[in-house]
Each structure stands twice: as C-alpha cells, then as structure tokens.
C-alpha cells in the first residue's frame, strides 16, 4: 500500500500552513472551498492545482466529480498536474455527486477527490469524514452555492479571490496568477488571510516576495 499521498512533506503553501495545527497541511480529511462565481471557481482551481501537485506526487490519481464540468484539463498542466492522471466523473444529479464522492473517498490509493457540491448536510459530511478516516484520501468540496452553507465536519473552509497581478519593473501585460487566500475556518487552527502568487511552479507569498525585492533594492542602493 503506498503511503497516504502528500503526507511526507508540506504542500508548498508556505506561511498558510502555519494556520493548521502543528503547522502541517492536513491530508486524509475534507476541505471545503467557497467558489460561488465562475471567476472564483477558476481561481480556486488554480490553488487546488498547486495542492494537487503535491498530493499526486506519490503516484495516486485524482478524481474530479461534478454535474456541470467546466474545468479545462490542459490548464492543469500549468500547475504541474498531469491532466491525464485526473479522472472526471460527470454525474446527473446532486445526490449522485455525494454518492460518488463517498465511494471514491473509500478508495485507498487515490491522491485526492474533488467534488463540486451545491448542498451538503451535516450528516452527509459526517459520512464523507468517516470514509476518509480509513482510506486517508484527501477530499475537496467546491461549494458553489453560498446560500446553502451549513455546518459541516470539514477541517477547513477556504475562499480564493483574484488579486491584480503585478509584473516586475512595471512591464505591461498580465503577470503570474495572484490570489487572496482566506482561511475562514480551521479546526484547532488560526484562520487568516494571505496573498499568494503561483510563479515558477510554486506558491510564493506576496509579502515574502516584496521583502525579497526590498532587500535586493536596498542592497543595490547600499
């Protein structure tokens, strides 16, 4: 049996990981991500892409369950995820989304299971939680209807929103994807908000980058 994916090292989220207990991004649990608009779905899939890279490093594939799939597989390549190791499950109704997710979460050896979900009851989220407890698969619920948010057993509730990109030296054009990543709720951790950029195939904290830039500038001046 391969070890649970991504358990060995961090997932490359840098300062965000400090928000979790012991400073470790929890795997083998369910995360919840809020993405009511298409723009936010796109931004969230960027963050997810970065996370999946780390989770899939052990060789396990990823399942993506949805009713109305828009994800463009070639884009995942930009986040270092091999799109041909993602398996898309298109289901007809909400009930089947949760059924498929529960079945998939029971399957040892998967790196991650992502499901686009409108509504989930506390009891249903308990079932998902029980499923991952023995398989140690990491699950992500993409919540696309904020009116139906209830209490769940998810360990963390995320929200990703776009931030204007910045190109170095004020060059024209669109820069690296940059987001504000909010951890609205963390079990036994500290919620917070971070600015992240996906550059050179890894997450970089915007604050750290600014500091680094300042350092080089001061050095230049000095």
């Amino acid at each position: 049996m391969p070890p649970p994916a991504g358990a060995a090292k961090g997932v490359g989220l840098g300062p965000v990981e400090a928000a979790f207990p012991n400073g470790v991004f929890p795997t083998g649990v369910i995360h919840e991500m809020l993405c009511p608009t298409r723009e936010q779905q796109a931004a969230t899939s960027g963050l997810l892409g970065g996370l999946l890279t780390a989770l899939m490093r052990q060789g396990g594939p990823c399942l993506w369950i949805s009713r109305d799939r828009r994800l463009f597989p070639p884009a995942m390549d930009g986040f270092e995820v091999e799109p041909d190791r993602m398996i898309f499950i298109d289901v007809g109704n909400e009930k089947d989304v949760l059924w498929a997710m529960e079945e998939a979460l029971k399957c040892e050896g998967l790196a991650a299971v992502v499901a686009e979900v409108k509504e989930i009851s506390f009891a249903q989220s308990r079932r998902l939680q029980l499923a991952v407890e023995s398989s140690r698969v990491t699950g992500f619920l993409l919540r696309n209807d904020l009116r139906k948010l209830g209490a769940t057993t998810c360990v963390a509730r995320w929200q990703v929103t776009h931030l204007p990109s910045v190109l170095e030296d004020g060059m024209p054009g669109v820069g690296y994807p940059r987001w504000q990543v909010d951890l609205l709720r963390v079990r036994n951790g500290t919620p917070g908000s971070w600015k992240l950029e996906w550059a050179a195939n890894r997450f970089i904290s915007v604050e750290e980058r600014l500091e680094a830039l300042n350092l080089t500038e001061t050095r230049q001046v000095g």
Partner: protein
Amino acid sequence: MIMKKRYVSLWFRHLLTDWFTLRQPDLKQAPFILVTPEHNRIIITAANALAEKQGIIVGMAAADAKAVIPDLKVMDDIPGKAAKLLRGLGEWCIRYSPLIAVGLPDGLIMDISGCAHLWGGEHEYLKEIITRLRSKGYDVRGAMADTAGAAWAVARFGRNKPIIAPGMHTEALLSLPPAALRLDPLVLERMHKLGFYTIKSFTGLKRSALRRRFGNDFLLRLDQALGNEDEPLEVLHPVMPYQERLPCLEPIRTAEGIEIAIKTLLGNMCRRLQSEGKGLRAAILRCYRVDGGVVGADIGTNRPSYHTDHLFKLFELKIATIEPALGIELFTLEAAKVEEISLEQEALWLSEGGGLADNNLIELLDKLANKIGTNNICRYLPQESYWPERSAKPARSLAEKASTTWRSGSPRPSLLLKKPERVEVTALLPDNPPMLFIYKGERHIIKKADDAERIEPEWWRRKRPHRDYYVVEDEQGRRYWLFRSGHYSDEQSQWYLHGFFA
C-alpha cells in the same frame, strides 16, 4: 462423447380459443368460434372444444356452423395472435430448457438434452411442464422423443405413452398416419388417394420412387422424424457461448437468496473463464419469475475480469432493483462480452501498485460506471491541436498513454466554456486588446492585457475564421480569455468570452 439429443414437442390444441376463454371466463360454458373473412366468405379459423364436439371444424364456413349450433358465438380472429402467444409461452418455458423454438401454428419444440434429470427424470419433467401449462388454462399435449419430428408426431397422433424411450422413435412412428410427418396438405391428399394410411406402409418403398411422387420435402420430413437428418431449430434465444443456468427447486424470494444465486453463477462462470484465460467485460443476469415475468440486471467492467468478488460487488448494487414478486424459479447469467486476459494485465491486477493501474481504482470506476454509465467517466490525453476545443481528447482506456505532450507554452484558462459566449467590447484601436467588455450585464474595465495569440483552425477546417485570443485582467484582478473571431477589418468579426483564468 456426443450427448444424446432429446426433444419435447408441445401441442396447444385450442391455443386461440383457450386464450379468449382466459380473457372472458363466461366463454367457458359456450361453444364459440373465431372467424376471418376469406374470398367473400367467413371462414372458421379456430373452434373451442365444445364447438368441436358438435362437429364444427376449422375451415368450415361460419354460416354452416351457425346452422348446426344456433347459439354459437362468433368472434373475429386476431391476425398474428397465435405467433405472439406461442412466443410468450416459449419465453415462459425457458425455465425448463434454454433451447425453445416456436412451431407455428400451434406448438413449441424444446431441445431438452441434459435438462430432464434436474427435475428428477423425464417422466416428472414432462408431467411438470404439462401440469403447469394446463393450470395456466391451456389445453396442451406433449411428447418426448429422440427427434423433434417424432416428438411432434407423437404429441399430435400418439395413442399410448407420450414419452418414447431413447432409440424407439422409429417403431413409435410406424403406426402413425402420414399427417404426423408435417407434410403439405396436397401431398397428404395424394397419399390418402394412394392408400398410404400409415407411415409403415411406405417406409419399405424405394427413396427414388417416393421422391418422384411426393417431392424432396417429403423425404426431408421423413428423414428428420427418423433422425437420419438434422433439424435445426430456430430458437428464441440463441445460446451465448458463456452462459450459466441455475434452476431453483423452491422459488427464491429474498435478497439473500438472489445473492447466493448470483455468487453461484459467477463462481461457475469465473472458473470457466479463468481456465480459458479470459475475463468478463459485460454480463447479463436474467431472473425468471413464477408469474412469468423476467427481471434482471447487467454490468460492465473497465477491463476483463474473472474475479467473482469484484463482479459480485457490481451486481450487489443492483440487487435492490430485482423484484422477485412471487419468487424466482430460474437464474441465468450470460457473458455478453468476453476478452482475453494477458498475463501482464493479470500481473497488474495482482500487484499492489498505485496509479491508474491500481486494483482499487479499477473496482471503484467499475462501480461508478455501473450506476452513472461508462460515458460519464472521462480521462483526457493531449492532442496535437492548437484549437482549444480540440487540444484534449478522451482516453479510450485507463492504460492508454499520451502520444504527445501537453502544450505548456501559452497560457490556457482553468475553466473553458463549452460554447464561447458573445460579449460587447470597446477597443481603442481595432488591432489592440479591448479596453472594456460587458459580460452578463457586468462591465469589466480591462487594466492589463497580453498580446494577441492567433489560433488558426487546421488547414482542413479552413472554412472557419481564425481567432485572436487575448488574456485580459479587469480592475479586480479577474482574468479572462477573450477572442475575436475573424480579422478586425472584417465586418463579421465578433468578440467572445471563452474562458476564465486562475
């Protein structure tokens, strides 16, 4: 060793009138006939037993019959009804044998080789069939013999025992009239004129003489009845090469019972498949109920398998949909699709390796596919095309490898609309990225944009205009993929939104 063939012929003496009586029970007490118009006359096509007792026979004019029995009930025949009824009865009889053929106009022929012992012997077997059919309301006679022709003859013309012991069919036939050979009425009439009243009277004659007088068909029928010539049956359900049957002595009514039946059938089939190095890709389970209904379930797998446990899990999901009603008498399992299993595949199956060849994953996907359909499970491989909609193609199997690499050169949006959506755009210069666009009523002021990426359709699809794609970012940092279809100077050029960037 070739198994000795045995056949049962069933004769429904009053097939149509029995059916009418079943539907209108008050007809039981009255003589009645079925008629059809023919050459300006109303001709009798069927008469019930009461009418026959008073001398009414098929082929008479209805008016003559009315003269004999004044209160005779007359009803219109339904064309094609007999064939339909026989088919239905044949389907019902599948519980007794898999090979059943309809013998128009009033019979069934069953190949029962190797079936009778399951019911405790030929006598019990035939008795069971006849009793059950009679209790359904059909006046049926049956006979068993080594050939279909002999069974047919004995069922209709036999006077003594209905079961002709193996090898005794020739003797049994000799005393029967020529009509027992299923001959053309014209031939029969000729034989009658010549004084051939029994089969015995012409078996000693030269074949050439018989052929000259009565034709080839006559000899064929004779040979078929005697067993010198094979008689191919047009069976209702051709037998699949991989089929398992499980008749139940007591009707099964519980889910546990159905589970045990499925496990038994799968176990038998998998043992056979494994010994032949094959695996199941699709299977159909049929359950024949006491009330005549047939229910079932089918499964499919992502790769050939002979693992009973795995295949059973696929059926397990569907057991709830199998309604046993009064009970299930017979289960059959057919392998609709069987494939060779290569040794490598089997090695993959047994290995504990992860990734796409993982055992657990295959089983999971089979399970999902059986509920939501195989078409709804996709994996994509890169395809040599710059056209965004064609840059990924569905993989045909889990094992299929990419033949090219994913193009990571130019940015691609995380979400791609299945159909590009029209947007209103303001551009300062026609060849520049737009300054703002309106999508779903919302104005997006473009703060940053990359230079255009021109994507041409492949040359064999040149009828379409090219697209100039722009990556743009609005004042909130939201990134979009816009394109202009066609050249900017072209009046027909249009702007579309095609995707959303992370």
